[in-house]
């Protein structure tokens, strides 16, 4: 069984959807999953990650910076991602994050878990 209230990896950060309301509250533990998925397509820095989550979700998911960076740093401490300083296209120094092997494995596991939950919730909603 999957426990919906599971705090996942202990990430207490939240992201909110859109500006307007509390209906966009992200389920706990989902931000790291989004970050992992974003980094799966290549190394990236914090701003870029936030923008890409926004773009891909067609602005439905908007990541708050106040949550993003602590999440990134905790994930780094947990060895899911690693960082190095590099130059951006605009010739600025930026801290780039990329997935570690542990991160790739976690992404697979979390994706599966999320899909199972989503399917389960959908099923419950349709029945009811």
């Amino acid at each position, binding site marked *: 069984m999957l426990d919906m209230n599971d705090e996942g990896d202990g990430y207490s950060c939240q992201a909110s959807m859109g500006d307007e309301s509390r209906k966009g509250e992200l389920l706990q533990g989902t931000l790291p999953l989004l970050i992992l998925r974003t980094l799966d397509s290549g190394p990236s*820095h914090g*701003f870029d990650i936030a923008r890409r989550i926004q773009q891909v979700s067609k602005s439905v998911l908007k990541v*708050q*910076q106040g949550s993003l960076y602590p999440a990134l*740093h905790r994930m780094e401490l*947990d060895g899911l991602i690693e960082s190095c300083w590099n130059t951006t296209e605009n010739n600025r120094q930026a801290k780039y994050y990329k997935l570690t092997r542990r991160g790739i494995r976690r992404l697979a596991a979390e994706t599966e878990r999320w899909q199972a939950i989503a399917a389960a919730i959908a099923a419950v909603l349709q029945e009811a």
Partner: protein
Amino acid sequence: MIPIWLNRLRLRLRALLSREHDAELRNELQLHLDLLAAEYVARGMSATDARARAHREFGNATRVQETSHQLFTMPLLDGVWRDLLYALRSLVRGPSFAALVSVTLALGIGASTAIFSLIDVVLIRPLPFPGAEQLAVVWETAPRVGYPKVDVAPANYVDWVQQSDVFDGLAAYSGNAFNLTGQGRPERLDGVQVTPNLFSVIGVDPVLGRAFLSPEGTRGNRGFVILSHGLWQRRFGGDVSIVGRAILLNGESHVVVGVMPKGFQFPREETQLWTPVAYSAADTPTRNRRFLRVVGRLKVGRSWTQAQSEFDTIATRLAATYSEANRGYEATVVPLAEEFVGEARASLFLLEAAALLVLVVACGNVAGLFITRAIRRRPEIALRFALGASRGHIVRQLVIEGIALSATGGAIGVVVALVTVDWLGTLIPPPLRGAVAPALDWRMLVFAVTTSVLSGIVFGLAPQWAISGSKLIRSLAGRGTQLPRERVRAALVTTQIAMAVIVVAATGLLVRTLINLQNVDPGFRTENVLTARMEVSSSGASTLDRRKRFYAEVLDRIRQLPGVVSAGFTTFLPYTNFGGSIELVLREQPDLPDAAKFAYRREVTPDYLTAIGVQLVAGRWLTEHDTLGQAPVAVVNEYIASLLGSGVVGTQLKLGAPDTPWITIVGVVANIREEGLETPPQRGTVYTPVAQSQQAWYFNPRDLAVRVSGDPSHFAAAIEGVVWSIDKDQSVSNVRMLEAVVDGQIRARKTQVTLLIVFAAVVVFLSALGVYGLMSFVVTARTQEFGVRIALGADRGRLAAFVARQGLVWLATGTAVGLTITVLVSRGLERLLYGVRPLDPATLMSATLLLCLVASVAALFPIYRATCIDPLTALRAE
């Protein structure tokens, strides 16, 4: 994949150690802000508006930064790190305090560690032989004659082997010297004749070749030798093919059968080779010649008591059977470790005790320093309390400060120990010298570090204990400097004084011992005399004539050297051999007391006695005219003269067997301390002219003494040259001043006394510091009170007396306790003393007075300060 905790630790450590981490965090967030602003600019906003918008959208950047920062810190370690830096900063601010504490601790830790490492190798670790705790030395002993340990007669050894059952093997050996010739420079080698089973009894096999086999060592079958590793390397270049080859020892061929392993030494460091000798009932002429040392391995399961009682039985039986030779002789079994360590045990324990007292006094001082300091820092600590620092935090910080200091002290202490430990080598008992090397191993290091860290924790906490929190808050208000822990400090100082009295008194006793020994008249004049040993080979029929000719020629040539005053040969110089005695019979006094029945026999050339500066008391010296053709003559010492009463000169004596001729006494000379500076002459000595010697034997001279005008060391090369020009194969060894021979008697004591003096000086200094600190503390604490008193008209002199009286009480208590302990423990010193009693009143009084004097001087400054208090300043301070 690395474990998560390791990854975290790595990143956190990097964050802790690199100054860049915070900057990186800032940069990362700044980039985000800039990119956000850039987006708004791209949408047509002005730069200023864009930045403001970005900031608003981003939210509280500082909070983000803090959240992230906390992720990367280790709260405890971070705090410790900060405390450590704080501690270092505050120590650097008061460098004299830091230096005083570290050096104080370093001396205590260093000295006790160094001496303990010596004790470890000498007393604690087993001797360097397998199963060494089962090994024992068996001596004959003649208590009634005043010989606690006598070498063993071969015939008795043979009987012991046959009759005893407690030993797995009983081996015998006797010292000998060998001249190695035939290749390169002739060399005198210290060697030992051993029974073939010696190596198996000791339990060490040769590293090359084999040990001696049983038939080897019987008469006519002795041309074998085993080399020490050192000799093999030095003279034969470590050549493996040496085994089976013959070398020339004393002019005779000896086949090398084996080489002992590196580091093996028995019985002495100097021993370089072993030759076989076997004793059997058929081949041991007389029981009267005692020259063997016997070593045995106790059977497993037998006790020392059993061994001793068995040898008591055997010795009683032998004394009854061979009453002429063995009457009064017993046997004693001494464990080898005890035999080897001997007197050193008491000496080492004394030094360790003194070093530990130094450590205790040092710790007391450090505690005192910390208490004073903590009280001075009260306002600061109170402020930190007030600002919200937790009690635990402040304790932690004080402890860390203590640890930082004591760890520094410990580190310096290790250096001190390393430096002293080499120098302490002279304290190793001679049989162990070379076999053991005191080294500071890791256990010592752990000991030192633990001591220092523990003391750090204690000292760090002591101040905390001295201050309670509620009073702290009051001290913030500038009040409440009333000192709660004066009594604690007073107790510390009293203890210090007590310890100092003990150390100073013990040092005083040993200094007096050393002075007494240095003032002992050995019976001869040591200055300006050079000595050397020449072992002459014992082969050939005409040996005696050749020897006599050799002595005459050498002396003749040496006398021609400019600056030589006189020169002579003797059997043994004083202190170089404690044996060499022979039965003495006096014609006029046939009934000698037991103790006088043996006398040292010295065959000398006429000038020997004048060369070492012995006083002639009566009669005449030996002369060149006392030759083989003349009537046999002798000079005796005063001890023998005292046996005869008046009219000694002209009477006759006999040495050794009854069939030897009577010898006429022609002169009496002063007693020489033959057996050691500490042993008063208690035995006769008979000097006979070597010219009248009838045998090539043990008593023929081997030691040369040359009295010169000027520095004797300049003559060393000339004398060697003379000898080699006469016989190129003659070995010359132990070339040294007579002063050095005598000094060898007290060298270990000098080291011991030097150490003790250093300890005593340190302890006295530290106690003075303690007294000074305590008195200053008292005066400072009462400045206001005294100010008021003075303002109210108190007499300054009486104030000073009031302060001084308090100091006197502590001083008196300290010295009383110290003296009491000294009186209780000083009996233990008895064996180490010479010419001074353990409770010598003069020494104890001087020690007490010294302490009182130093303490008074130390107390003087604070007391003086008390009289100078200006009431206005003192009151204004409130």
